[in-house]
């Protein structure tokens, strides 16, 4: 028979002012197993805790019930107190007679007292069935994986590496840099984007603690915090990067040209290419889709008919160090890491669903990112802003805000946050490029919340004469060489029509292609749009619900560069905190599976949201075993199992039933 001690807290008058403590004490003495009852003004205070410790020792108590505030408040406090008296901290149970009783039943003291007695009775019944539980120590692999080499990922990788830990930075594209590398200038300071980004990219490539894997994707992740087993696919580049010197002869001489992804279709690249001159690494890859030799090989391989493509191989013939390697294969790289940062970034909304804006059919209706490339000194036009249709300089430019943002009808009800600011920036810069340009911005609201943001949009209007029109655009049509933009100025309440030379759509922010797949690979949650879900939107903005996996940057939601950098740094701080420990302790309130009852049906492992159940062979069959490092103690497997093989420590069927039986004997 356990020896249960019950400690009744008055919480000043918070509890004792409603619940009649002496009556409760009298009643509690009658409960089976209770050998000691005491009450205290404030159990959580040091004298209160000392009294608990002393009573445990003096009375040889082996179970403790503390009848006080919510366990969400002081469970950890009292576990420590119990532990200090030499008792296993998990042999304690709290009866919540404050939040669930005295505070909500102050209108009926009699009923509150009666309820308090029953709550204690339930806790006594449950605690009697508590078992000693022990935290486990697991080793920590002092290495981090960062997925995504945009500014958030770069910042996270550098911060972790500077703290002395190993980092693997995985990037899907042939270069790191992300969206920020595509930008010309950044708001509101008009810093040159490349000037502030390129040094960081170089730092990454030269950092002794960073292993950079570009043109690579994370394919598989298993394990748990401290010990994630990761498989990364390094895609074949067909260029040996060990021997390649990055001299550039291949991409200068390659005869095949295709629209460049980095240039957002405004310019071209060759089949063997680096995305842009400052790319890191500055060594090329061969795009097998457009490469003439690969087309030739495909033609031969599939025995196609018609004109045979030329077996070009000019790059191979001209390469001084003979670094072209047609035989290169994808490579799988396996690593063990202690923590993972997800920074997969964003892409811009595909505006072709907006039929009223031409649905992508009008050449001089471009996206903001395309304009960014046209304005960029290293862009396809070397910084000259020209119309894609005829190469002339636009004089009247109309910006449309919220294309794929704040639009329920297009399934994008959220605000993309960055567009108001980049429109102001682009309109201002157009004027700097060519003082003869007049810009108009159709907006819903000007959302310029941020340091120096409002001042910046004011400057665009007052100094640079950008005209803001509050309203939506209903149609864009071509009228000879002009684009007629028909909209409404809702402030004067009239339809307006502007004859423009170019229209810029401020396309909204959405998660990168394949973000949901990354989330699924890592088993973290993502929302209906595909943005990663943080553990708590305010208090845990970079954590996920999986320990050891953090999120940073625009993969969580629309955000600008300073926020992404801060976010990357925050994620890095969490990783550094984890990696600075040699071992981790795990919460022991996990599931355990009774091997003798397990039929190996696998239902539990299908239901488990954390993939914490492994199948292992035993006595000629497979049975389920809980991986305590991954188990979060939700108990889904317990409720799902047909043969009641799993049980959840701290919440066993017997313990729950004991509470029910205490209420309904």
């Amino acid at each position, binding site marked *: 028979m356990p020896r249960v001690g019950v400690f009744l807290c008055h919480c000043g008058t918070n509890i004792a002012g409603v619940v009649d403590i002496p009556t409760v004490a009298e009643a509690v003495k009658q409960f089976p197993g209770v050998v000691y009852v005491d009450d205290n003004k404030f159990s959580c205070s040091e004298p209160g805790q000392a009294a608990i410790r002393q009573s445990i020792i003096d009375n040889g108590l082996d179970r403790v019930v503390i009848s006080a505030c919510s366990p969400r408040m002081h469970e950890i406090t009292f576990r420590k107190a119990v532990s200090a008296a030499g008792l296993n901290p998990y042999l304690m149970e709290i009866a919540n007679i404050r939040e669930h009783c005295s505070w909500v039943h102050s209108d009926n003291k009699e009923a509150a007292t009666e309820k308090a007695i029953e709550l204690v009775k339930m806790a006594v019944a449950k605690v009697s069935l508590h078992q000693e539980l022990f935290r486990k120590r697991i080793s920590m692999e002092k290495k981090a994986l960062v997925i995504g080499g945009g500014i958030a990922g770069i910042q996270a990788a550098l911060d972790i590496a500077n703290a002395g830990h190993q980092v693997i930075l995985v990037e899907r594209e042939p270069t790191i840099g992300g969206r920020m590398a595509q930008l010309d200038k950044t708001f509101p300071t008009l810093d040159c984007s490349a000037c502030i980004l390129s040094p960081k990219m170089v730092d990454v490539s030269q950092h002794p603690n960073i292993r950079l894997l570009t043109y690579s994707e994370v394919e598989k992740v298993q394990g748990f915090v401290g010990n994630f087993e990761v498989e990364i696919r390094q895609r074949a580049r067909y260029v040996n990067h060990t021997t390649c010197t990055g001299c550039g002869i291949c991409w200068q001489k390659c005869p095949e040209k295709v629209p460049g992804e980095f240039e957002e279709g405004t310019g071209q690249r060759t089949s063997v290419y680096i995305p842009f001159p400052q790319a890191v690494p500055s060594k090329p890859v061969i795009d097998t889709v457009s490469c003439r030799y690969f087309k030739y090989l495909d033609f031969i391989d599939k025995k196609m008919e018609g004109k045979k493509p030329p077996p070009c191989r000019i790059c191979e013939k001209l390469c001084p160090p003979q670094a072209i390697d047609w035989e290169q294969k994808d490579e799988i790289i396996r690593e063990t890491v202690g923590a993972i940062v997800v920074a997969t970034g964003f892409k811009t909304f595909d505006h072709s669903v907006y039929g009223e804006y*031409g*649905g992508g059919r009008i050449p001089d209706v471009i996206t903001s990112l395309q304009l960014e490339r046209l304005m960029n000194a290293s862009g396809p036009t070397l910084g000259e802003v020209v119309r894609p249709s005829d190469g002339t300089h636009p004089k009247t430019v109309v910006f449309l805000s919220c294309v794929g943002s704040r639009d329920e009808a297009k399934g994008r009800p959220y605000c993309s946050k960055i567009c108001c600011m980049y429109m102001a920036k682009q309109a201002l810069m157009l004027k700097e490029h060519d003082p003869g340009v007049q810009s108009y911005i159709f907006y819903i609201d000007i959302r310029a919340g941020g340091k120096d943001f409002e001042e910046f949009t004011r400057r665009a209007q007052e100094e640079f004469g950008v005209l803001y029109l509050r309203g939506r655009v209903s149609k864009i*049509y071509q009228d000879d060489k002009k684009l007629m933009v028909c909209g409404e100025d809702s402030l004067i309440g009239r339809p307006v029509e502007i004859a423009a030379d170019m229209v810029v759509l401020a396309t909204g922010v959405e998660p990168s292609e394949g973000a949901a797949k990354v989330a699924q690979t890592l088993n973290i949650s993502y929302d209906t749009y595909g943005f990663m879900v943080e553990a708590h939107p305010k208090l845990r903005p970079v954590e996920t619900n999986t320990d050891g996996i953090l999120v940073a940057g625009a993969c969580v939601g629309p955000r600008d560069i300073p926020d992404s950098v801060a976010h990357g740094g925050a994620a890095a701080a969490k990783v550094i905190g984890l990696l600075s420990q040699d071992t981790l302790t795990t919460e022991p309130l996990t599931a355990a599976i009774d091997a003798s009852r397990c039929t190996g049906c696998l239902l539990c492992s299908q239901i488990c949201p954390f993939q914490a159940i492994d199948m292992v062979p035993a006595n000629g069959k497979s049975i389920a075993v809980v991986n305590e490092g991954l188990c979060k103690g939700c108990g889904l497997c317990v409720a799902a199992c047909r043969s009641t093989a799993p049980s959840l420590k701290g919440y066993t069927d017997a313990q729950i039933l004991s509470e029910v039986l205490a209420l309904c004997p």
Partner: protein
Amino acid sequence: MAVSYAYYPGCTLKTSAREFDESTLKVCKAAGIELTELADWNCCGASSAHSVSPLLGLSLPARDLQTAEALGKPVAVACAMCFHRLKHASHALGDAAKLKQVNQVLGKEFRNTVKVEHLLTILGSNGSSYQVTKKLEGLKAASYYGCVLVRPKEVMELDDEDNPQLMDRIVASLGAETVEWDFKTECCGASLPLSKPEVVVNLSHKILRQARQRGAECVVVACPMCHSNLDIRQKAMKAAYPGFQEMPVYYFTQLMGLAMGFSAAEMHIDKHLTDGLSLLKSKGFI
């Protein structure tokens, strides 16, 4: 196998747009599509009934739909406005309470199971087979759908709201060339010619001007109201906009008929106010 429809012509096709009605009947017959005119049909309610009484706006088309339902045939409609009202009624009557109310008005049981199809769909679908005997090669046409034919998309279930293609495909199948333009579904001024004629002249002129700008020699329509605005108002356009050049406006069924071997007279091309014959003559089609 002949496809059989209950044909709902609507008031306009029996009066000011007879050429649309007759060309439709002839073309369909030749294409093996059996159109049986709905017996005792009534006005669809356009364009005033629904703004005066929503219940009347639903009951009028519902009565016609009920007659077709009793025959067990889908309804074929040529007029864009009639199509709009009939589709709207069958969409709105998906609501059981409204259907019950309408049935009380009708005094008959309408179950709202009948399908309503526009001729563009019927003739443009893969199932229809019309023989083009005289290719309209060299003719550049702008297909003009108007605003009510495709909007709202979820009710009309016909084609894209901004860049529809059904009529373009039909016109192209006749050997003519269709132009890419931005005014396929712009408003022509609709029922304003009596109250605000200047609005109609302005809007219709914009449409014709862009068609011309994109190289079209004629406009092809599927709506009697659009036709009347674009066709009748050209004299006023000439007065209001110096330099405006007249442009013939045809129903798509008229061009189909020509390409299928009917004469211009059989297609009543001479019935338009803006000369439609000279262009066709100059191309050698008639």
